[in-house]
């Protein structure tokens, strides 16, 4: 596998793994708090809708001229990637709470337990069905977007599909084997890496689509990815220092008040 192909596989695998962790958490909460059968039917229904969307959009995406596709996808990846990196840096530097899959699972579980049961012709428990359906559909749409855009841009939809399938199957299998939120998956680190990958591919494809010619052609990606990573790590270190100062200041602040 060439360098850029390996980068494509890793980017798609990690991005889809993050989405799969979130979908698995929701389905586990729906199954545990409500009804496993309804959660299963909801998951199946969402996968069926996703299959229809892929069947409809897949061929259409491959017919879009590559230059136009690269500009649009590059722009979207840059916007998404910068958002992911920003949040990841804020989390890593202590300016934002860490993404906690166990906490999210507990929240989904508590909310699901509060709802009243309602049987429909589709599933024994409507709420469990809807929760699983929405979770899998929304996270699945992001997986479809990642596979189609990355795959079409790199002329390698097959490799992108394999990477996504590997990520989803591994995460879902582990999730349902342990029947617990995947708290041990280093999701915050994964999001940091995915942000770097999305941004790097966004810079590369966006630039190419807008007419830029990268020195070294596809091999430029192998320079862009580590450069973006180093920049993000540097910003994290910088913010961690300032964050520490602010945290100390906040910790001392309440001590002034009781004087009155």
């Amino acid at each position: 596998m060439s360098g850029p192909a390996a980068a494509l596989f890793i980017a798609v695998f990690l991005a889809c793994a993050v989405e799969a962790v979130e979908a698995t958490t929701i389905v586990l909460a729906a199954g545990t708090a409500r009804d496993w059968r309804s959660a299963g039917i909801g998951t199946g229904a969402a996968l069926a809708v996703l299959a229809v969307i892929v069947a409809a959009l897949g061929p259409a995406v491959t017919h879009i001229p590559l230059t136009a596709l690269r500009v649009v996808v590059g722009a979207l990846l840059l916007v998404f990637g910068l958002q992911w990196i920003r949040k990841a840096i804020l989390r890593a530097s202590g300016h934002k709470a860490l993404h906690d899959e166990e906490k999210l699972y507990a929240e989904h579980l508590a909310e699901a337990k509060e709802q009243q049961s309602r049987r429909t012709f589709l599933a024994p428990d409507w709420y469990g069905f809807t929760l699983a359906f929405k979770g899998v559909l929304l996270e699945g749409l992001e997986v479809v977007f990642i596979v189609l855009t990355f795959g079409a841009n790199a002329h390698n939809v097959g490799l992108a599909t394999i990477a996504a399938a590997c990520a989803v199957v591994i995460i879902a299998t582990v999730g349902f084997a342990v029947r617990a939120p995947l708290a041990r998956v280093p999701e915050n680190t994964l999001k940091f890496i995915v942000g770097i990958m999305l941004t790097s591919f966004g810079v590369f494809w966006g630039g190419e689509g807008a007419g830029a010619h990268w020195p070294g052609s596809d091999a430029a990606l192998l320079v862009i990815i580590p450069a973006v990573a180093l920049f993000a790590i540097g910003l994290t270190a910088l913010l961690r220092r300032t964050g520490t100062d602010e945290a100390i200041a906040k910790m001392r602040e309440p001590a002034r008040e009781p004087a009155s």
Partner: protein
Amino acid sequence: MNKLRAFGAFWYDFVIGDDWVVAAGVVIGLAATYGLHKAGVPAWWLLPVLLVVLLPLSLSRAISGPLLPPRTRGQRSSPASPRTPPAS
């Protein structure tokens, strides 16, 4: 009407996210890259430079302040009151 607004809000949140400056910067950067390319000037460097400007800008907006607090050499943040509250 509410559903239409919710639909629009969903797509705004999905595409633009919580910092519109990033989205605007990306669009301007791509347009400038295209402009340079059309003018016959090498344009590959523009998006990396944009990234170097845009990410710290967005971070500083997120934490609602400058990226680095103004601090002169050798000067620490001003000491606050003691940790233990004064006796009432």
